[in-house]
Each structure stands twice: as structure tokens, then as C-alpha cells.
């Protein structure tokens, strides 16, 4: 069994790309057949919305004439061939997007491999590992994206979220591999314009380019001139051998301790204010981002007016959906939706925890050269689990960045299994009261809320585990 899996993983990646693309094409063909015979269409409602909006554009009108079109006009422009060439064209574009995302995931990894003697070397024992296991890791993280049922269905149903993921990954790619910061700024601007949520990553990108950003916590400590103390002097030599690494033995014993003499741990220091003074690279990033974001907004505002601003940006800020969903805040929001005298404190308490977490993750992981991807991952998870509306579609945002850091998260297999089980179980038990409410008309709001609470707890637990397993030592130092 193992060897079959091993063989499958290590097949040439081009084969996987091809196979994944063929799977998507087959599903697109199937969707045509399914839609022609079934009342419940396979194709997403939004796909029809895109096509209708594209028709408006072709006729020289505004895509926002189509009700519930709440995207950038770019989406409608992309799918214009739906009307000219074939109605499946958009779905094929989204699937090609998927494949390019897979390539980007792969290229990110290859860079690590090429640079293994360079600064980005963070796999502690990379010298001793043959290329094999690293290759396997690269392939596995690509496969996680390619064969993920969620990503396959989302793009073949004709949802544009995979393109949003593509822009986010392209930003990360240009930022980390191409080092062309103006270009990454431009792409980041496009991705914010395309789907508002990447705006939350901006601070992390900014911090990544800061001169205060270091490669390891050790570097940070060195730069702070603090004395490193080791618990066991015999490990000192080992540590020198694998410089720039964060090594922790998994079974106690040898351990690089954080400085023993921690004088004071403060949350805020005055020096931190220096972090926000931009350097040249950061300025390039900011200008690029502002140029593309504002020029796109300006162009489309001139073309389609306020309706464009409202539907593309403002709506997503003021969106309030009372219908039941996975979110922790669903029931609270529904109860207080039309109650007038609700204090501002409630709103603040809903927003504050996620703002705090987003800021902390941007600073903590953004200021480290090789945890940028992890910073994006944790921020995405925070955004999704604290969102006031949470549906399965939002998990795609996580799925897109997860493969980038799978190899940095050293989680024991049984823990992975356990977390996955409780994650699916929490969703499963949510489904029961939701089903009773939606299809049986029973008043189960309270139970849905309780399940929402438990799902939130599961998500927070998983996030906590990810953080504590991030860059944990892979192997015990001999």
C-alpha cells in the first residue's frame, strides 16, 4: 500500500498536472450533462451571474446591471468568451488557474531546494537528506492542492475563488522568489481589487521586506545582543553545524532554550515604531499596490460609477447575512440584526479579537523571512473562523495557502488524524440541527449556535496546534 502511494506521489509532476486537468475537464463535461437533466444544477449560481454580466459588457452596458453581481468587472471580462467561444470557457479558465496555482506551489518549493546553501535554508538536516524526501514533500503539497475535492469542485462549478487564490499565490511567488517588489505590489493591488480579503495580508508583506525581518529567532536574538544559553553544552557544536536553524528535540533533553535571562517581556517597545518606517523595497511594494489598486478602481469607477464601488468593495464590508452558517457569530448576529439599541461594545468585541490576532500574526511571522507563508496561512484561518459569515467556500482560501507551509509544520501523524477527525465531526454534527431547521422547519437555532460554538473551538484548537508544531524539529539531533 505504502509503495503504491509512494510511487504515485513520485510520478513526474507534469503527469499530475495533466491528470488533474483532465479530471477537471471531465467534470466540466459532466456538469453540462448534469445540468441538462437535473433540477439542482451542478454549476454554481454565480457562474450564470458572471455570464450574464459578460453579456452586459458585450452589449456595452455595465455588468452591475445583473443583480447579485458583486465582483470585480475583471471576472465578467474574463468570461466574455463564454458567449463568443463556448459557455464552458470560464470554467476552463478557472481550471487552468488551478493548474498554475499548483505550479506556483511547486516552484516555491523548488526554490527552497536550490537555495539550500543560501539564506533560505531552514530545513535543519537538509544536507543529509537526499533529494528524494524533499521532492516527495514538494509533490505532496502540490497534490494536496491538485486533488483536493474542494478545489476541484469549486473551479469546475465555475466559482472565481480559485482565481483569487491564484493572485494571492502569485504575489507570494514574486515577493519571495522573484524579489521584484514593485511587481508584487502591482499583483497585490490586483488581488485586493479582485477579492477584497487579501488586503489583510498587506501588513505581513510589508513586514517581510522590513530590514528588521530576520531569518530565525536566533538571528533576532543575536541582533538584539542577547546571550544565548544552551541547556546542554554538547548540543552547542551541533547547533553551529546547522546554523540558521530552529532545532528542538522532540523528546525532551537537548533543546535550544530561549534566552535564560529574559529580563522583561513587554508587548510594546518604542523601537517597534521604527518597523513602520518604510525602506526602499517596502516603498516599491506600496507604490505598486496603490498604483494598480487605484488605477483599476479609477478606470472601473469611470466606466460603471458608484454601483461598481458599492458592489465590489462596500458591500463586502457591510454584508450582513442572517441565514444560518458555520460562524460563531451567526445566532448573535441574527438575534440583534433588527434590534436598535445594541451597544457599540458588541460590535467592538466581535471585531477586536480578530484584529488583534491579524496584527500579531503579521508582525510575528511577517518579520521572519521564512514564515511569511505561515503568516498568510494563520491570518487566513483567523479571518475565516472569525468571519461573521462562514460557509465551505471560505475553506478554499485556506486550502490555497496550506500547501505552501505543509512542509514546515511537523505534526505527528496521529495528531493530524485526530484534528482532521474532530474538524469533520464538528461540521457533521452542525449539519443535523441545520438540516432540521432548513428542511424540517424545526426551531433549532439554539442547537445550531451550540454547534457553531463547538466548531469554533475545534478551529481554534487546530490553529493552536499548527502554531505549536510550526518549524518544530523534524528529527532528533543525534
Amino acid at each position, binding site marked *: 500500500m505504502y509503495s503504491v502511494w509512494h510511487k504515485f506521489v513520485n510520478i513526474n509532476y507534469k503527469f499530475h498536472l495533466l491528470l488533474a486537468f483532465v479530471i477537471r475537464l471531465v467534470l466540466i463535461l459532466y456538469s453540462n450533462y448534469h445540468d*441538462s437533466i437535473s*433540477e439542482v*444544477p451542478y454549476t454554481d*449560481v454565480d457562474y*450564470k451571474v458572471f455570464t450574464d454580466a459578460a453579456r452586459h459588457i458585450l452589449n456595452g452596458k455595465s455588468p452591475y446591471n445583473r*443583480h*447579485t453581481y458583486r465582483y470585480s468587472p475583471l471576472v465578467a471580462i474574463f468570461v466574455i468568451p463564454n458567449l463568443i467561444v463556448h459557455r464552458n470557457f470560464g470554467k476552463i479558465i478557472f481550471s487552468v488557474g488551478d493548474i498554475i496555482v499548483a505550479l506556483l506551489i511547486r516552484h516555491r518549493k523548488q526554490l527552497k531546494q536550490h537555495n539550500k546553501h543560501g539564506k533560505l535554508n531552514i530545513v535543519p538536516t537538509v544536507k543529509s537528506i537526499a533529494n528524494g524526501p524533499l521532492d516527495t514533500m514538494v509533490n505532496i503539497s502540490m497534490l494536496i492542492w491538485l486533488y483536493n475535492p474542494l478545489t476541484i469542485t469549486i473551479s469546475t462549478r465555475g466559482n472565481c475563488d480559485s482565481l483569487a487564490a491564484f493572485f494571492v499565490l502569485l504575489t507570494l511567488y514574486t515577493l519571495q522568489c522573484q524579489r521584484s517588489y514593485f511587481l508584487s505590489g502591482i499583483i497585490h493591488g490586483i488581488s485586493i481589487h479582485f477579492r477584497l480579503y487579501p488586503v489583510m495580508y498587506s501588513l505581513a508583506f510589508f513586514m517581510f521586506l522590513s530590514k528588521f525581518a530576520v531569518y*530565525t*529567532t536566533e538571528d533576532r536574538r543575536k541582533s538584539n545582543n542577547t546571550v544565548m544559553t544552551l541547556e546542554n553544552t554538547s548540543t552547542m557544536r551541533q547547533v553551529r553545524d546547522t546554523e540558521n536553524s*530552529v532545532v*528542538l528535540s522532540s523528546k525532551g533533553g537537548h533543546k535550544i532554550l530561549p534566552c535564560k535571562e529574559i529580563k522583561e517581556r513587554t508587548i510594546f517597545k518604542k523601537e517597534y515604531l521604527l518597523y513602520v518606517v518604510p525602506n526602499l523595497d517596502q516603498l516599491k511594494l506600496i507604490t505598486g499596490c496603490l498604483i494598480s489598486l487605484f488605477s483599476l478602481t479609477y478606470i472601473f469607477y469611470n466606466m460603471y460609477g458608484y454601483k461598481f464601488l458599492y458592489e465590489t468593495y462596500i458591500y463586502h464590508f457591510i454584508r450582513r447575512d*442572517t*441565514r444560518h452558517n458555520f460562524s*460563531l*457569530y451567526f*445566532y*448573535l448576529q*441574527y*438575534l*440583534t*440584526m*433588527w*434590534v436598535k439599541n445594541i451597544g457599540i461594545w*458588541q460590535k467592538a*468585541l*466581535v471585531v*477586536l*479579537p*480578530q484584529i*488583534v*490576532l491579524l496584527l*500579531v500574526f503579521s508582525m*510575528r*511571522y511577517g518579520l*521572519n523571512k521564512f*514564515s511569511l507563508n505561515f503568516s498568510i496561512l494563520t491570518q487566513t484561518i*483567523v479571518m475565516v473562523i*472569525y468571519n461573521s459569515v462562514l460557509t465551505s467556500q471560505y475553506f478554499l482560501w485556506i486550502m490555497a495557502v496550506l500547501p505552501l507551509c505543509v512542509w514546515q509544520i511537523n505534526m505527528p501523524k496521529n495528531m493530524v488524524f485526530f484534528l482532521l477527525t474532530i474538524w469533520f465531526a464538528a461540521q457533521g454534527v452542525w449539519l443535523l440541527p441545520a438540516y432540521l*431547521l*432548513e*428542511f*424540517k*422547519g*424545526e*426551531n*433549532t*437555532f*439554539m442547537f445550531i*449556535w451550540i454547534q457553531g*460554538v463547538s466548531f*469554533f*473551538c475545534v478551529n*481554534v484548537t487546530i*490553529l*493552536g496546534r499548527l*502554531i*505549536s508544531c*510550526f*518549524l*518544530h524539529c523534524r528529527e532528533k539531533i543525534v
Partner: protein
Amino acid sequence: MSILDTAITSAILYLVFLQDYCISNDSECLTLDISITQKVEYEGFHRDIKWLVEILHPSKESWLSLSCNLALRLDISSGMFVNPDEVADLKRMGKLLTYVDGNVDVEAAAHEATEHSIYVYLNNSQIDKLSVKLPVHLRYQRSQITGGYGKIPLAKPSLLTWCPANDTKICGRGLKVEAPCDAEALTLCVWKNQTYQALFDEVELFVPVGDLDDYPLVSIVTLLLGCAGCIYILSVLSTAPL
């Protein structure tokens, strides 16, 4: 009152009588005897309204020769809605010819939504016994103290007839209604509201409503949990290796 007046009055009365009871041997007027059975299927937020429309008189053949059109019009109260995209799909599949009149906001809650109407055009060729299934969706209602269920009255559908051939007239003094001629709704026609035998009672649909009595518990636990999650993550971060 002159004799002439009396005569006219009695003639009018006779005509009214004639129209009301639709004497079928009158060549100018066609009696229509239609019965409708209504059934609402499913219980949650998504319901199917099923109508069984039966033409008891005239016979199928003579009805078809008249080339008259039948349609059902249902006024949808603000507590529910017909999804325009969904019925458009049904139209595309040829299962249900409909036209939705009015703007439908599928996301709005009951007290913020507007009413709209739907016209269901009945298939002429199988007119003697025709079943129609219309999917409707209930809207969320404003949460209230003690929660429970909200009531949504379901109106009876109106039966409309329109005979393009001018010489055919259908008996009855139905109201004239301007409505789209067909599901394409390019032109308006004058339809006539027809009486029918309703073999069903008016119903009310029930929809679950959030309970404001839960508010103290829900708000305290939700908000505290949000903060607790944040604090937990921060504490994990403070001990994490990186």
C-alpha cells in the same frame, strides 16, 4: 319607472343571471368548470407548492380547438419568495413556464422584503389534468421574544384566461387583469380572472423564528468565546518555538 326601463332592467338581470350561471347552450359564452387542488410539500425553508388543475368542462378536444390560454397568478407575500434564477432554470428545462413580476431580493428578511407575483402558464396540450410544482422559499423573520414560529399566509392562486380568438368568450364576470401574454413577457394581454372550485383550504406556513430570550446567554458566551480564542492563540504563540 317606465315600462322600457323595467324591460331593460330585467334584460340586464337576465344577462347577469346568464353570465353567472353560464348557460352552456349559449353560443356566445363558454362555461368553464375548473377545479384546483393545492398541496404544500416539505416543511422547512424550501417548499413546493403543488397544484392539480383539472378542467371538468369543456372536454379536452373542444378546449384545444378554442386555443384559449390558462395561467395561474400567485401573489407572494413578503414572508417568502420565488427565486427568479431557479424558475428560469425550470423554464429552460421546459418544466415550468413562468414569469416573475416584481423585484425579488432573495437575501432580504421578511419584514424588509417586498411582495411580488408569479405567473405560471399552463401547458395547453395536457390541459385536462395538469399538475404544477412551484418551488418557493421562506424568508427569515425578525427574531422575537419567546421565539417559536412565524406565520406566513399563503394566498390562493388566481386563475386567468385569455382567448386570442375574439369570437370565443368565457362565461363569468371576472375582473380584467393586465398580465404578460406568455412567459417571455414581451407584450401585455388582458386576461380575465376566472372562478374555480378550490378543493383546498387556505393555509399558513410556519417558519422558525429566533428567540430573543436567548440573547443574554448567546451574547455573553459568543463574545467571551471570541476573546478567549484570541487569548488562547496568543498564549500558544508566546510558548511556540517560532
